[in-house]
């Protein structure tokens, strides 16, 4: 049996649910989504018991740091007009952060390493942002596609270019997160496969298997950083797109 490094991304259905032709099974991906959101909800519940301390405990201080971080993000990017979007940005950031981080535990599953999850999320958010833009500006929203100061002769070409660039935002947002997560996990799996194979052969290679192992060790640290960073990048890009929709540049 030859194991591929992509086998770790296999979706296994745990509770099969079938509605006619549609399969809505509870899979391992769903289980890990439940795990990450459940952990965050339990953390928030435990921290805000009895309203929380005035002098914060350690965990409460951590939760408040996340809150204030997202507040500063929204205020910096969108300003006063974007206050209504704060809960959405907050839930996106925490959801992605914890889902990515739970995937870093060995033998667990990263739900965001599937294109469906990330692309679905990014497309939904993009459609929402566009709808917000139309709601705020009406049909004047299309003026976004023709930047100021551009000569009218170039208008047809520029509008098409801007439209394609605008629609590509949805794709790039999702694919960025998916590619980072999948590439990181695949790399770690390949290197640890090397270490295991070298160890199982025995002899001098068994001693040399320490090298891939240390590389895997360092790479895991890097991947944890990438997990946090990709959650942050996703969130800040959503804020920027929302800013573009509300305050037309």
């Amino acid at each position, binding site marked *: 049996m030859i194991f591929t490094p*992509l*086998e770790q*991304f*296999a*979706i296994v*259905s745990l509770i099969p649910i079938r509605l006619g032709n*549609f*399969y*809505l*099974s*509870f*899979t391992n*991906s*769903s289980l890990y*989504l*439940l795990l990450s*959101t459940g952990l*965050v*909800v339990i953390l*928030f*519940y435990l921290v*805000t018991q009895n*309203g*929380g301390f*005035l002098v*914060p405990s350690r965990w*409460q201080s951590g*939760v*408040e740091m996340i*809150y*204030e971080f997202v507040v500063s993000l929204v205020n910096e990017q969108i300003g006063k007009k974007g206050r209504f979007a704060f*809960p*959405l940005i*907050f*839930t996106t950031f*925490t*959801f992605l952060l914890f889902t990515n981080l739970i995937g870093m535990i060995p033998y667990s599953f990263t*739900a965001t*390493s*599937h*294109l*469906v*999850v990330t692309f*679905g*999320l990014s497309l*939904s958010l993009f459609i929402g942002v566009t709808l917000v833009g139309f709601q705020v500006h009406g049909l004047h929203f299309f003026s976004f596609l023709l930047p100021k100061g551009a000569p009218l002769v170039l208008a047809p070409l520029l509008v098409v270019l801007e439209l394609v660039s605008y629609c590509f935002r949805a794709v790039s947002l999702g694919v960025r997160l*998916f590619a980072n997560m*999948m590439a990181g996990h695949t790399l770690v799996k390949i290197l640890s496969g090397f270490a295991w194979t070298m160890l199982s052969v025995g002899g001098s290679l068994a001693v040399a298997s320490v090298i891939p192992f240390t590389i895997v060790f360092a790479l895991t640290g890097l991947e944890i950083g990438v997990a946090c960073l990709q959650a942050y990048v996703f969130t800040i890009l959503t804020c920027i797109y929302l800013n573009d929709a509300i305050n037309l540049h």
Partner: protein
Amino acid sequence: MPQLDKVTFLSQFFWLCFFYLGFYYVILKFYLPKISRILSLRQKKMGFSNQGMISLQQENHQVREDYQELLSKALTLSKTLFNNFFSQTTNWLSTNATTINKTQYQKVNTSFVQSLGETSLSQNVLFYHAGKNLPEKLTFKILQDNLQTFKKQQASKKSQNLSQETLKKTKK
């Protein structure tokens, strides 16, 4: 590649929406208000707002002004105290000096002058007795010799008296 297995797409997307929206609802209704409540309460308590800062600055300014006023008051008070002290001591000294001069000094002066007069008088008497047969040209050596002879006379007289007394005592 498992990511491109279309069979799983609907299930994954459905459960993603379910958990994402459920998470959003729970956070929006329960936990975001609680966290924002504790943060705003802490801001109010600590006075981190601009108003708090301004009032604190004013209070600081006020305290400094009061302190400086207090210092200047203390300085003037100490100055006046010193001046009073010096004037009082000079007054006391001058009054005491005048009273002493009036009362004690006169007596001391008169007694001193008296003693001077007595010693000079006794010396004059001594010289009169000692220098009965003095020549015209008086030198110090002649004076000294005369004094010594007078002293010897006195000493001999004393010793005669003493011997007479002892004779009388032995007789008794």
